[in-house]
């Protein structure tokens, strides 16, 4: 089942749910029977609803309710401890950055604010095969890259013809710099060409809607602009190296056809991250390079 089939099924199911007239009538009757509210608000600014006789029977629970006397200070200490634990847990499990790595495998790492990998997803079958062979959750970003690049499932893609693109997505500029730096260092250690870009949330969303990593999506978008006979879907199965070779061929073709037209409009991939995502763009060292 793909995403669109699943979404269609969800829509069909929820479309079939309609509020019963009887429930609306009963609710209106309950509201009409309310006394004027005191105007009290709860912490979130929502008015406090008065106690109604619940539609469901609450007697069982009411019978079980017992008053317990526990020292207030002990409760406060427990609450403070729980809040502290909860706060740490939230910080640890909330993603604040994403890094898409596109070669032919496309994988995405979700990172928390401490640059720890909290989840990893694949955008294609090759990516899934790579992730099946490694365990990187809980590792720092640098450690995760090392494990990935040295893994038996990923290493075969890192030959001299390969191109690796890192796409960093985050609203936090200091985290972006740290991740860009680590990514560039990783590229420098590999025998491949590669680059690292920061990408906006919008492009990230578009790429995922298209079922691709950001790097592949940006390259596919550029190629489709240069060669309108291709679609984004056609580019989905191409490796990053193939996409870049095709882009280069198209640009050469356009340049030779339109010499008198002045400079071509072909822009580097790094400049495509629209909106706030534009920024750093670092080409890595490699055998095709300078």
């Amino acid at each position, binding site marked *: *089942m793909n*995403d669109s089939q*699943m*979404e269609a*099924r*969800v*829509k*069909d*199911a*929820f479309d*079939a*749910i*309609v*509020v*019963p007239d009887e*429930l*609306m009538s*009963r*609710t*209106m009757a*309950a*509201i*009409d029977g*309310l006394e*004027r*509210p005191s105007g009290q608000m709860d912490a*979130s600014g*929502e*008015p*406090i*609803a*008065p106690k*109604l006789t*619940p*539609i*469901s*029977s609450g007697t069982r*629970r009411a019978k*079980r*309710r017992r008053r317990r006397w526990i020292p207030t200070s002990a409760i406060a200490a427990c609450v403070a401890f729980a809040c502290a634990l909860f706060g740490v847990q939230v910080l640890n499990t*909330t*993603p*604040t*950055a*994403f890094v898409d790595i596109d070669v032919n495998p496309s994988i995405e790492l*979700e990172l928390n604010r401490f640059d720890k990998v909290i*989840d990893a*997803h694949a955008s294609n079958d090759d990516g899934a095969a790579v992730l099946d062979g490694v365990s990187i959750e809980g590792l720092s970003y640098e450690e995760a890259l090392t494990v990935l690049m040295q893994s038996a499932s990923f290493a075969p893609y890192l030959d001299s013809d390969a191109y690796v693109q890192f796409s960093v*997505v*985050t*609203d936090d500029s200091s985290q972006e710099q740290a991740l860009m730096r680590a990514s560039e260092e990783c590229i420098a250690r590999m025998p491949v060409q590669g680059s690292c870009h920061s990408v906006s*949330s919008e492009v*990230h*969303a578009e790429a*995922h809607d298209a079922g691709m990593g950001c790097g592949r999506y940006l390259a596919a978008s550029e190629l489709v602009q240069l060669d309108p006979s291709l679609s984004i879907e056609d580019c989905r199965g191409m490796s990053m190296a193939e996409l870049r070779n095709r882009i280069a061929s198209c640009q050469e073709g356009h340049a030779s056809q339109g010499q008198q037209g002045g400079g071509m409009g072909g822009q580097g991939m790094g400049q495509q991250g629209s909106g706030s995502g534009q920024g750093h763009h670092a080409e890595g060292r490699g055998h095709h390079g300078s």
Partner: protein
Amino acid sequence: MREHEDIEQTMSVFGSTVWRVCLGYFRSQHDAQDAFQETFIKYAQADSTSFDDDEHRKAWLIRVASNACKDMLRSRKREDGLADALAAQEALAPTQASDAPDSLVHDVLDAFRALDDPPRLPLYLSIYEGYSAPEIASMLDVPVNTVYSWISRGKKALREVLS
């Protein structure tokens, strides 16, 4: 207190939306009905809250309905403890034939209820209500990247369950 006509009109337009949110949290019709009632009581009392348009009103109702459901679930856990919660799960009332769903609907609802929240509500808002990630982020007051992550994770989990 808002005018009777205002409440009635809002319930007729957005009642099903609120009902879907409530059923997304509770398998028991009675609990879902309680949450539905609570939501519209809050709406009736929020006469100092003004809405820019119907979309704003709808977003407010969804948020209040979701909070009402979560409050009920929290309160249930506090009062009954895990053993009773499990017992309550066993004693769930079967879905009424008049308003319900065939097995397809049931499967989807059960799959939704099996998700944590988040990603349950953001996923529902994205897939069914058609809200964009930035809109959901604004509605739930969380970073937009977090919403993307919830949606992506929720879709994956839902797909696995429904497959």
